[in-house]
């Protein structure tokens, strides 16, 4: 019941935000924040339930479309709890940074923001493949509007590109889902789209491999991994700040989550067979993203490419199929959520103040805006993976786990430890240091933005210094995935 409320509150909040715009111009933001606060309270109530460290934390199953055995089935384990928390936290942050940036059509803006989050939470909780796909698609249209209506100069093209990429990937997954359900139907004589039923479906190896590919393509479009990444730099660059925060912080994670929850457990043999290819794609994404980031002059584009690099780590970790690497992936999901969201907030704040995203036109901001600059430095080095901050733990664990499986690839990927400082320090040098490029005013962060960023800094620090609670929370779910894997040959 609490799980349905998590989603329902966001939906209701979205509708309420839209309709109360006429009462007061600031009302939509307050309503949105209230809805997110309610969700946060629910999450606090769920955390103690996770303490027994074994089974699912919560489970809810209602009939939905009995004709095809489709249920409204939600369940939560440690991983989904962490990711829903991330979504709610970043939702609050996004509302925080939208209050200064979004000036027109506020009601519809918060409606889309909350619907997008509701879809994402639904994705993290759905245990019925039809419901999962439903929520997966539900995220798209609101995000499309966020980018298209409130985005920057070339936003419509970027938004359409985003929509078409994800939709085509998604339909491949729908095809795979339906085919899997029909195989289950052929086995047992009844229709079911339930995750726990379909785990027992027995497609023959060849079919399983193709179906696994269907899922893999959909998720790696969202992730995005090479070669499906073309939509991401455009979408990020054009999106408004709050849109970028949600896109980088929450929506990309749905891809990684999908790989972890569906691709690997549903098709263990096929996944193992495919692992070398997936890991190579991951490694290429890591290096390619980093190299491309270094080559950018547009700040938001640069951050977008670092996202590709970090998401490559997740792909690498998930297909290494051992506990350390999987935990590394989960930690990277959270850490990247915090750091990318913060960096996009900073980029948005700079654009708002300087009216440019070109780093060539920035420079010398430190004396003008010391707080902004210090925070930028913090998240830049978090993004390069400095020990003591969250990203380091994630990347280290992924590399550790991958090394056991494929040492050569790990060595190659580790080159990113040289490339990442290069792009991270590029941000710092070009925007903060050097002479002032032209005489200009640059207001420092206000208290509201400081609060939002302080939360993210604190989260990054906690994750870096004391990651054990997160690892403990995720461990049972990850172990369950690994138990189902075929023994190593």
């Amino acid at each position: 019941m609490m799980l349905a409320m998590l989603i329902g509150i966001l939906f209701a909040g979205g509708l309420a935000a839209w309709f109360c715009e006429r009462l007061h111009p600031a009302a939509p933001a307050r309503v949105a924040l209230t809805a997110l606060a309610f969700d946060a309270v629910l999450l606090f109530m769920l955390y103690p339930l996770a303490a027994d460290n074994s089974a699912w934390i919560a489970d809810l199953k209602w009939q939905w479309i009995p004709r095809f055995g489709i249920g409204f089935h939600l369940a939560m384990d440690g991983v989904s709890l962490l990711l829903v928390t991330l979504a709610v936290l970043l939702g609050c942050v996004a509302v925080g940074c939208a209050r200064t940036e979004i000036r027109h059509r506020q009601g519809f803006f918060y409606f889309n923001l909350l619907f997008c989050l509701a879809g994402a939470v639904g994705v993290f909780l759905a245990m019925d493949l039809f419901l999962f796909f439903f929520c997966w698609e539900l995220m798209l249209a609101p995000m499309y509007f966020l980018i298209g209506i409130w985005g920057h100069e070339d936003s419509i093209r970027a938004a359409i590109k985003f929509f078409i990429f994800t939709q085509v990937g998604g339909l491949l997954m729908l095809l795979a889902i339906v085919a899997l359900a029909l195989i289950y139907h052929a086995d047992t004589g009844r229709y079911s789209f339930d995750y726990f039923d379909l785990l027992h479906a027995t497609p023959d190896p060849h079919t399983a491999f193709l179906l696994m590919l269907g899922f893999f393509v959909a998720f790696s479009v969202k992730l995005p991994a090479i070669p499906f990444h073309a939509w991401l730099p455009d979408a990020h660059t054009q999106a408004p700040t709050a849109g970028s925060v949600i896109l980088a912080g929450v929506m990309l994670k749905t891809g990684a989550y999908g790989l972890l929850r569906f691709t690997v457990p549903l098709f263990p043999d096929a996944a193992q067979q495919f692992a070398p290819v997936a890991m190579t794609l991951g490694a290429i994404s890591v290096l390619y993203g980093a190299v491309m980031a270094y080559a950018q002059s547009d700040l938001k584009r640069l951050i977008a490419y670092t996202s590709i690099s970090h998401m490559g780590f997740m792909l690498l970790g998930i297909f290494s199929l051992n506990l350390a690497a999987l935990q590394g992936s989960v930690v990277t999901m959270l850490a990247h959520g915090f750091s990318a969201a913060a960096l996009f907030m900073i980029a948005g704040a700079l654009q708002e103040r300087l009216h440019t995203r070109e780093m060539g036109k920035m420079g010398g901001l430190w004396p003008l805006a010391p707080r902004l600059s210090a925070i930028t430095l913090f998240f830049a080095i978090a993004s390069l993976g400095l020990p003591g901050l969250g990203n380091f733990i994630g990347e280290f664990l992924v590399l550790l786990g991958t090394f056991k499986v494929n040492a050569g690839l790990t060595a190659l990927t580790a080159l990113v430890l040289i490339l990442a400082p290069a792009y991270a320090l590029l941000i710092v040098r070009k925007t903060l240091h050097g002479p002032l490029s032209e005489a200009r005013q640059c207001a420092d962060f206000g208290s509201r933005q400081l609060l939002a960023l302080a939360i993210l800094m604190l989260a990054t620090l906690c994750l870096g210094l004391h990651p054990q609670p997160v690892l403990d929370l995720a461990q049972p779910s990850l172990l369950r995935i690994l138990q189902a894997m075929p023994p190593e040959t």
Partner: protein
Amino acid sequence: MDFQQLAAMPPIAIIAATVLLTMLAITVRRDFTLSCLLAGLGMAAALATAATGLRDAAVQVTPLIVMDGYGRFYMALLAATGLAALAFSHDYFKQRDGENEELPLLLLTALLGGLVLVASNHLAAFFIGLETLSISLFVLIAYSSDQDKSLEAAIKYLILSGVSSAFLLMGMAFIYARCGVLDFPGVGHYIAGRQHSDIMVLGGVMLVVAGMAFKLSLVPFHMWAADVYQGAPAPVTAFIATVSKGAVFILLLRYFLSTGSYGHSQLLNVFSTIAVLTILAGNLLALQQQNIKRILAYSSIAHLGYLTIIFIAGGNMAAEAAGFYLTAYFISTLGAFGVVAILSTAQTEAAEPAIYQGLFWRRPWLAAAFSVMLLSLAGIPPTAGFIGKFYVFVAGSDAKLWGLLLTLIIGSGLGLYYYLRIIVVMFLDAENIAPPVCRPAGKRLSHAALAILTILTVWLGIYPDYLMALLQG
């Protein structure tokens, strides 16, 4: 045929009686509202009788017509569609001068043709229904004859329709020459009795299919669609896109299911080629259009392509999947053209994208409804179109039509582009352009119909189970 038999097929009898009644009423008093009211009552009564009798046993009425669950469901669907089209027509033609009283009458006769089609069990009834439908449509398309596009469209449709009817008759002649019967079970019996497929019957079926592919605007018989959609008045376009295409498709499916023509594997190859061509050409051509009605025309071509996948799949799932897909398609198409009709004025059809610019900020509800319809046509949840697409996937996977389903995915990706482009236009800022027309006064019926259609689209997208159970029974 005696009275008892007539009473056994109430929707057809009611519509036929309403046709006569409306015609008499017009001779007594020319009043547009009155004839709309009569037509509406007739359609509502037909809808009610078809819907209440849904679970009754199948009855064979004369050798021509069979009243079974399948037929009754589609009769109800067609009657409901007719009602919506009538509501749009009423508001649309009310604002135009001229003698509009025959318009409801023609909608009724077209609907009568559609009802006969979906219930026909015999090649003769098939032809009668089709011609009743088509001849009414010629006049409907040309109804606002003061607009030059309209006459051009009607003549185009008339000539091509005539040619396709000739093909159809030739095909029927071939089938009759071999089977010696015209009723579907008889033809099925003949086909079942043969080891190999008979080349003459096959040729006949092929010619019939060619004739019907024209009505369905499947590629390469699609040339007329865009021009006719553009030239016809918007409510009539809605009617053509739904009732005319739907009824023919339903008949085709019934013919194939009840005569066992799925045995002709060559035919299925032909259909697969047609489906691939239709999906790709429909979507690719839509990309190049600016006119909203033309975009919707090509989108409807693509949708018939998706339906053809269900048709090819056949099997147990086909009737149910086609039922759901058609319902979703009917509702969304009616809604989309309904918006066009509402925005049209006495002088202009609302087909230029400029009319839609900033619509969301001027008339949010109308724009929201249009967005829902377009998203439904694009197959995005939570709309009925998504469940329809899901059915295509289920039926297609069941029959292992992987190539066709991949084409469907490509087509949907392409389709998304032009649907989203229309939606984007509605969300653009309209501050720098003056609204092209002042708000046309009072189109209450259309608004009510559109509201119902929108609610249905979302309702069927979230809670499709009721309709599924209905179709399964």
